[in-house]
């Protein structure tokens, strides 16, 4: 079990301390100062401050958090709500879990600040069902806050500032990470994403005005409010300020989490993780969770910020980096990735439901030594047909990794078809 990142920053500096997940421990380390400071400001000014800081959502899409908050209707005769997206299921991502286990109160304080800024009276934290310990930690933290009077009514002595937090467990479905799939699931239904518009700010959880943010996004907020915009912008790039908890997994010597500024070179992150295992050469790196297109070793100099990764045809996603060494068969990687998407498609859109199944079938056929040139052509055309035009971005997320593999590692696929077998006997087992 990871208890602290291998490199810590402002988010994680106290994670190693035993008491950091208790209210007393968090307050000893300066906790709940920021919310008190925010309460002395006008709600709109708090949203502005967070907008100015440039904090981008850490759930994958990278939307400017403070801007999203301003989409909430100012006046509403219906209750406004926040949703904390703790469904973390993107393969290669394991940061939100640590934040919940070791630093739950920063999330909860961030939620209170967002509640003040948006006028929300209730928050649902939707945690993936497999995350037993994070759920336990969050529930304990919420109970402690309630006992301390930090939840309920007239919080921190502020008249009219009332808030409640419910920790809600999901039940094992990747698509519930997509924000409208999550909302459906929260309502006790199948987690099938909704057509947008209407967006959650107009019609969200239970039809109420809703803002959805990721766990890590909320966790940055108290530090920004406490220490200021300029301080926050001292980390990261102009367009992507702040740090993030990068995850490095796969074929490295010391997999784990590293809190470093956005924009940190990919090569540096891999070196922090001890480099490629066994002194082998790197063949490929997925930079941001399995949905993001793969990069070849010639791209390791790229800075890990979305605007920089976009120039190389990929995205930051959740910052979950997967390293594959020279023994790795890219068709096997495609088999694993495409199986996942086939399994998790919610089935509402034809091109997603059928496309994910086809891609997996073709990849398996090629790996088994029964692929043809027609199959290669299908791997070019099917992903392109899936992109755009679906109810949610899952179909894009399923198409992109295959497109990335075909762009950079077409030779692997061709060799399978030519030799009618897998030419990588040393590769990881399928």
């Amino acid at each position, binding site marked *: 079990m990871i208890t602290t990142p291998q490199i810590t920053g402002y988010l994680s500096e106290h994670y190693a301390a035993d008491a950091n997940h208790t209210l007393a421990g968090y307050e000893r380390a300066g906790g709940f100062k920021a919310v008190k400071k925010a309460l002395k400001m006008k709600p709109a000014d708090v949203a502005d401050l967070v907008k100015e800081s440039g904090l981008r959502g850490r759930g994958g899409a990278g939307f400017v958090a403070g801007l999203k908050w301003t989409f909430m209707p100012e006046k509403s005769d219906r*209750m406004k709500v926040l949703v904390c997206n703790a469904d973390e299921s993107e393969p*290669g991502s394991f940061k939100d879990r640590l934040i919940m286990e070791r630093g739950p109160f920063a999330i909860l304080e961030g939620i209170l600040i967002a509640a003040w800024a948006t006028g929300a009276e209730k928050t649902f934290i939707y945690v993936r069902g497999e995350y037993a310990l994070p759920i336990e930690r969050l529930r304990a933290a919420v109970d402690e806050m309630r006992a301390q009077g930090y939840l309920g009514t007239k919080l921190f002595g502020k008249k009219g500032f009332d808030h409640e937090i419910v920790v809600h467990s999901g*039940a*094992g479905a990747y698509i519930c990470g997509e924000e409208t799939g999550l909302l459906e699931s929260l309502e006790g239904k199948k987690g099938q994403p909704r057509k947008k518009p209407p967006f959650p700010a107009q019609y969200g959880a239970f039809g109420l005005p809703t803002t959805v943010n990721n766990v890590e996004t909320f966790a940055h907020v108290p530090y920004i409010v406490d220490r200021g915009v300029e301080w926050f912008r001292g980390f990261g790039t102009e367009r992507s300020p702040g740090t993030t908890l990068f995850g490095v997994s*796969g074929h490295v010597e010391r997999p784990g989490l590293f809190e470093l500024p956005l924009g940190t070179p990919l090569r540096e992150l891999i070196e922090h993780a001890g480099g490629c295992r066994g002194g082998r050469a790197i063949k490929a790196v997925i930079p941001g969770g399995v949905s993001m297109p793969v990069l070849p070793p010639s791209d390791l100099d790229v800075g890990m910020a979305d605007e920089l990764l976009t120039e190389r045809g990929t995205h930051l996603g959740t910052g979950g980096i997967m390293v594959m060494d020279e023994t790795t068969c890219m068709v096997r990687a495609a088999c694993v990735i495409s199986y996942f998407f086939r399994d998790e498609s919610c089935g509402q859109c034809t091109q997603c439901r059928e496309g994910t199944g086809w891609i997996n079938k073709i990849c398996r056929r090629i790996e088994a030594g029964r692929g043809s040139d027609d199959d290669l052509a299908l791997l070019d055309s099917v992903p392109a047909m899936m992109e755009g035009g679906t109810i949610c971005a899952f179909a894009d997320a399923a198409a992109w990794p295959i497109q990335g593999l075909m762009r950079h590692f077409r030779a692997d696929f061709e060799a399978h078809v030519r030799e009618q077998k897998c030419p990588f006997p040393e590769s990881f087992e399928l």
Partner: protein
Amino acid sequence: MQPETRQKIEALFEQYPEKRGALLPAIYLVQAEQGWVSAEQAEALAELFDLKPIDVWEVLTFYNMFYTSPQGRHHVYVCTNLPCSLRGARGLLKQIEAHLGIRAGQTTEDGRVTLGHEECLGSCGTAPVLRVDGRYCENVDAQEARRLVDALE
């Protein structure tokens, strides 16, 4: 549905703007009674939530963590997504299959263990990972896997 389960479920209603929001937590509570949810239990849930049985059934079958058939006394799941596979998870799963004499998705004849594979568990930094009765077991090798499985009663 046992009366205590019903009480626990009713206590959840007020947390949600609409009663139906409590359906997933309610299914967990019902499932805890015998480890899976029967058609009768689903109907009782539907009644409690003012829903049609099909509404409950389609939710039950949408999510991986709800079971609509009897399960082993213990659950062993191996993550087989890419980060775990890169670190040998599929070989590990095959060894456990051989050790238990069943395939993933099956239950041992004595009803002791249900074995399965799962998608990413969010433990990529400590791969490969197993989920044994809901508990994460990280950095598991073949020897450790065998020890974990054998320790289940």
